[in-house]
């Protein structure tokens, strides 16, 4: 396999007068767990549906596992598995029947692997889907997807409706896929989950990607939070560029600083005699909120 598993360039899609995607770019490399972040309505599900060959792109290029997701849908689908955002199953079938049928339609799955997953997720396969809770229906779709031994796994809001225990099982399974060298594209707005399992993320807003990179890279580009206590009073702190959210009570300084100006801030602090210093990279949540707050334009 050469080249990225998913390569999307300048993707556009409109539904009537609604512009869902306006030039979206996304690359997922083989072997990475890629987080696809964005609030509801940002275009995540539309992108994934285009990748699954369900929707046809208006413009742009999309390559999936080296093929065209619209033309080669059936052939590509035997090499991937997908959990849609809204899991709906057949109420008159049992969970076990559903797993069998979905597995066969995908081209066969590993019985042993599936049995292990049914166990891990604590699913009772003899119960009709109509009697399952929302979380149990979600588990059926997750087990069906995870039981397939394929190159790419695509999840749209996979832990929606799962309890924290089962969400943890899901994270463990994704980590195992990662170790086995599989590629995972995970759309989510559960940031803790993305933080725990993803090594690269793309943030989508109003139909285009606003940031993409490894979590470490993104953090380096972002403001750090600084809490410092100095021996003497600080002077001229307002002259340091790139500071924000500043509060100073005479001894303790709290602020955020752009990485480029960290050096200047530190020399000011050193001049005032640093007693203690805490620095913290931004949490994913802070980064995420910042992208959306920056965009005062709305959507």
């Amino acid at each position, binding site marked *: 396999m050469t080249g990225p598993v998913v390569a999307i360039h300048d993707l556009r899609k409109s539904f009537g007068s609604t512009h869902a995607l306006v030039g979206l770019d996304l690359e997922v490399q083989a072997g990475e767990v890629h987080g696809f972040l964005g609030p509801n309505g940002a275009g995540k599900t539309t992108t994934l549906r285009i990748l*699954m060959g369900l929707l*046809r792109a208006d413009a742009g290029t999309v390559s999936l596992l080296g093929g065209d997701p619209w033309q080669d849908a059936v052939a590509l*689908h035997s090499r991937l598995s997908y959990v*849609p955002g809204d899991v709906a199953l057949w109420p008159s*079938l049992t969970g*076990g029947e559903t797993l*069998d049928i*979905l597995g066969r*339609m995908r081209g066969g799955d590993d019985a042993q692997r599936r049995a292990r997953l049914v166990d891990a997720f604590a699913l009772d396969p*003899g119960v009709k889907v109509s009697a399952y809770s929302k979380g149990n229906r979600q588990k059926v779709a997750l087990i069906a997807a995870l039981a397939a031994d394929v190159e790419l796994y695509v999840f749209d809001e996979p832990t929606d409706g799962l309890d924290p225990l089962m969400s943890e099982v899901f994270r463990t399974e994704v980590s195992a896929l990662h170790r086995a060298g599989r590629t995972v594209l995970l759309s989510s707005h559960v940031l803790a989950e993305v933080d725990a399992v993803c090594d690269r993320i793309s943030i989508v807003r109003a139909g285009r990607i606003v940031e993409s990179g490894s979590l470490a890279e993104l953090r380096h580009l972002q403001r750090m939070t600084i809490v410092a206590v100095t021996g003497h009073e600080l002077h001229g702190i307002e002259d340091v560029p790139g500071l924000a959210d500043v509060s100073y009570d005479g001894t303790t300084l709290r602020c955020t600083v752009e990485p480029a100006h960290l050096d200047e801030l530190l020399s000011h602090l050193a001049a005032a005699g640093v007693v203690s210093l805490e620095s913290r990279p931004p949490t994913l949540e802070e980064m995420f909120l910042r992208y959306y707050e920056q965009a005062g334009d709305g959507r």
Partner: protein
Amino acid sequence: MTATAPPATHVDIVLSRAPRSAFAGTGGLLRLALRRDRIRIPVWAVGSALLLVAVASSWDRLYPTDADRLNLAQSLAGDPTLRSILGPIFDPLSTGGLTAWRAGTSTALVLALVVSFLVVRHSRADEAEGRMELVLGAAVGRAAPLAAAILSGAALLGLFAVVAALLLSALGLGVAGSVALASTVAAAALVFAGVASLTAQIARTSRGANGLAGLVVAVAFAVTAFGNGQDGTSPLVWATPFGWMQQTRAYADERWWLIGLSLVVAAALALAGLHVAARRDLGDGLVAQRRGRRSAPSWIAGPVALAWRLDRTYLVVWLIAVAALGALEGSMLTTSVQLVEGNPEMVAILEKIAGGPADLRDLFLVTMTGLFGLIAAGFGITTALRLRAEEEDGRAELVLSTARSRVQWLLGHGSTALVGSTLILVVGGLSLGAVFGASDGDVVGQAWRAMLASALMAPAVWLVVAIPIALVGTLPRWAAPVAWLVLVWCVLAGYFGQVLGLPDWLQQSTPFGHVPLWPAQPMSWTPLVVLALLAAAVLAAGIAGIRRRDLPR
């Protein structure tokens, strides 16, 4: 028509152990139901009333003199088939009496089904799909959703009764008779709203609740038909709401108390439903949830096999129903032939339907098998429209993300619709012919003839069923409305065309209008081949469409 909505105090006496708060929020939910069905309710109510009016206004043109009408009554009342299905004629001389006889039972039958499905739609369907949980989380009593559902059904019937009574009176049919006919039809249908309020408690799915309610309607209708078909007066005509409706004798010395009987039974059934609804757990039914098999048989490995697995129970129910109907028709055929043989007027009417002189038994055969075509189309359309439900509910997305093609997906419920409707034609014909043959002494021969006569409608049924399949492939939002419009057109033109005085070309404008009436008339292959080719072309357009369009849309 508001018998199911007695003052809250009455309800509380009957439901003495249920807290008054069980009905909290009924008014708001009723407004919600009326808002959701602001088109559906008036269309069915006014449409059914207009059908009555259309039939009523045709008699003066078709049978202007008393002599004509007596003739009609003599020739038709003797025919056990018609008497079974339509009930007795109480006053053949008045336009009102003829209208009550010709259209009363069919209107009550249609409204009974419409209103029971409406009750299920606003009770069990909302519950099974999880919407009710949202509603009950608000300050709403446990019995309130069902109470609102029943009241919305009563509102539909009330609207029908008022419109029908006003229009029939305006035609000069007599105010008392018009009020009696409109209210007895509505009251009979209201009993089945009560039945549905119970079946919605018994079954856990809306499909199950609808099926049970439909079964009760069918059994009630069959019992009345059987009673009417007996010589003399069978007590069975007093056994069901359809019988009470007919025996109300609208326009012929009305028995008003029978309307009251329907209302009381409707209220009792509704209260029983409310009693259960106020006490059971959300999502629970009286039918215990069974455990199922833990694995699927190996033949289910694609969308087509999956559709057969999902649709098989539904198909079997329809096959049993059509076999029962065929047996009922077959058992009446011999008597019908004997009665009509000495009646040249009746022979002339039948020959007019068949388009020329023919053997009497064959004439009856083609008349009776004609009904199977509409039934098969009804099954085919409802099954084909499951494709649309699969898409809207999101299950299509799951299937299409596997290594199965869009065409395979379309041919899933598409194939059960086409093949299943063909099976319905075959089974209906076989059953009719076999039962008729048993009295005729030639079981195999008659079964074969009736089966062929019925199966000749297959290309016409395929064309009607291919339309919703093709629309799912091309213009999915139009699939349901267009499919039902086509079926209504087939029923109106083919079944009521003569009564409504539609021109011949319009009566024959449906696919069924082109089917050769073999064995009553000579066989002709051309229309069958043309219909089959049209069906194939429509289907091909759907297949081309599904490969191009966004899904879900």
